[in-house]
């Protein structure tokens, strides 16, 4: 078996990446906040003071108080509990949509970069055409086709995020394809599939990981925008975007509703962007080249 694909010693590289990541204050802040959000989303039923759909008609539109920390909505539902359960929706849409985009985009980029020629031309022109749409417009058009729902929002956001992964993967494959270690693996008898998946792909992972971490934040923003426009997650399911849209209609009577729903989106996206930026620094290609030489 050819061994040319093992150029990065992950046992040595990973602690280095984590160390660099933890040295940045903003990245650490992003990491801690992201972990807290995931914990809140996973353990929502135990953390949230109330069930998200628990109605208290006599407590309609209560201002923030000891009983309702972030106030209550028109049906007397606790806004904090809805925001905590809303984290599940946002993080789920963000991660699954980016999972879809990464799976499709990395595959397409790998095929385009590795095969080149007409296949490359065709794939990249379609990606260019997809990139030609303002992302939110394409997402809206896709939601019109698929119909508004949580699953369809994931698919639509996944589709609009594919070109970024395809482009990054292709660009990296193009530069790696001609490198000596790939030539060596080929000379040792490695077939096309082996070269693409075992030799080249692991060396493209750093930019893909960075794109994924930044992509999740962006996906959460698009989901919130779609739900805000009434095309995403449908009530009564708690989604930050639809809560914000409803809060806007009650802005004069209950300003806390829109304020806290939007703040939840902002803080989450900020944390993920901080983490993504930190990862970008930690996974710098120059660092990788040092590892490759080691």
């Amino acid at each position, binding site marked *: 078996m050819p061994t040319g694909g093992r150029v990065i010693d992950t046992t040595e590289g990973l602690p280095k990446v984590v160390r660099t990541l933890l040295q940045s204050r*903003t990245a650490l802040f992003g990491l801690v906040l992201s972990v807290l959000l995931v914990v809140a989303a996973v353990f929502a039923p135990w953390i949230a003071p109330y069930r998200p759909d628990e109605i208290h008609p006599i407590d309609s539109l209560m201002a923030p108080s000891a009983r309702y920390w972030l106030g209550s909505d028109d049906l007397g539902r606790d806004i904090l509990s809805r925001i905590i359960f809303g984290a599940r929706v946002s993080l789920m849409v963000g991660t699954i949509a980016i999972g879809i985009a990464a799976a499709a985009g990395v595959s397409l980029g790998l095929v385009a970069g590795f095969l080149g020629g007409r296949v490359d031309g065709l794939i990249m022109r379609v990606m260019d*055409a997809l990139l030609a*749409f303002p992302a*939110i417009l394409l997402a809206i*058009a896709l939601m019109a086709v698929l119909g508004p729902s949580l699953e369809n929002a994931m698919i639509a956001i996944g589709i609009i995020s594919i070109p970024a992964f395809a482009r990054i993967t292709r660009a990296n494959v193009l530069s790696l394809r001609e490198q000596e270690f790939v030539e060596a693996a080929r000379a040792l008898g490695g077939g096309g599939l082996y070269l693409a998946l075992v030799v080249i792909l692991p060396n493209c992972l750093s930019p893909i990981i960075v794109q994924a971490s930044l992509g999740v934040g962006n996906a959460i923003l698009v989901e919130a925008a779609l739900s805000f426009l009434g095309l995403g997650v449908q009530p009564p399911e708690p989604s930050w975007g639809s809560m*914000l849209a409803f809060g806007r209609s009650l802005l004069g009577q209950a300003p806390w509703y829109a304020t806290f729903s939007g*703040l939840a989106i902002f803080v989450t996206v900020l944390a993920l962007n901080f983490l993504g930026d930190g990862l970008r620094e930690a996974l710098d290609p120059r660092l990788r080249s040092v590892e490759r030489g080691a």
Partner: protein
Amino acid sequence: MASYLVSRLIQFALVLFFLSIIVFTIVRLIPGDPAAVMLGTEATPQALAQIRQEMGLDQPIPVQYAKWIENVLAGNFGTSWVSKKPALTLILGALPVTLQLVAASFVVALLIAFPAGLFSAIRPRSWIDQGSTTFALLGISLPSFWLGIMLVLLFSLELRWLPPSGYLSVAADPLGALRTSLLPAVTLGVALAAPLTRFLRSGMLDVLGLDYVRTARAKGLAERRVVGRHALKNALLSVVTILGLQLGTLLGGSIVIEQVFGWPGIGRLSLAAIQQRDYGVVQGIVLFVAALFVLINFAVDLLYLYLDPRIRYRAGG
């Protein structure tokens, strides 16, 4: 240079072709029979069949696509099945509203990003640099529709300085338009200013570290001249590229912001068309906006050619 232009034109045409296929496919996949939507639930099968024939929906898909493209090239983007007006008339009617929003946001973005990016590059690690870097980081993560709502809460509902919503044309009432445009323009402008500040700062920092800038300083040129004449011109190259790309984002962002501030632009038109299953208008808008975006980026390419002699040289060689 001519061969470069021809190759860019061919790429441009190819992207438009694939784009048209994507738009056509998306709209054909929208669930629900448009003929049934038009005639309502009481329609007879004969009436439905007649409408489908009139609309060409009984033809095979490739024939429908060819007819559609033929019409688009002749300037006919289809007809609204709700208002019976040509889609292009509706789009062109809403376009000035969106363009007013995009243009005003663009001005706001430049007013924020230029001083912030420039000063933070000239004085790295100063409080201005830290402030503008923090602004850029926060601005990128800020949901613009939430910012808009918060601005309405503060400036319209609390302070009562500006109207919470509504649109006035700048041609009809310049002063009124300024008042109604301010909040939407700041909302969308901040979203553009954040990445622009980052690009301008890093572009300027790169250029300020180059030998020719050191030479200009060594020759005793005033700092203002070094920055303004020598460094800024080259740093602008990267900014022009990002501006072209961000204009598309701005067009997309305006869809949501029009909804927040009740502006009757392309965004509101597209949402209404989707809700009414008005295929012709949805198709027209998506194609029109995407083609506009591709055209803007093509124009940016040409501008780049003009701004950077190195590309001109390479293209000519």
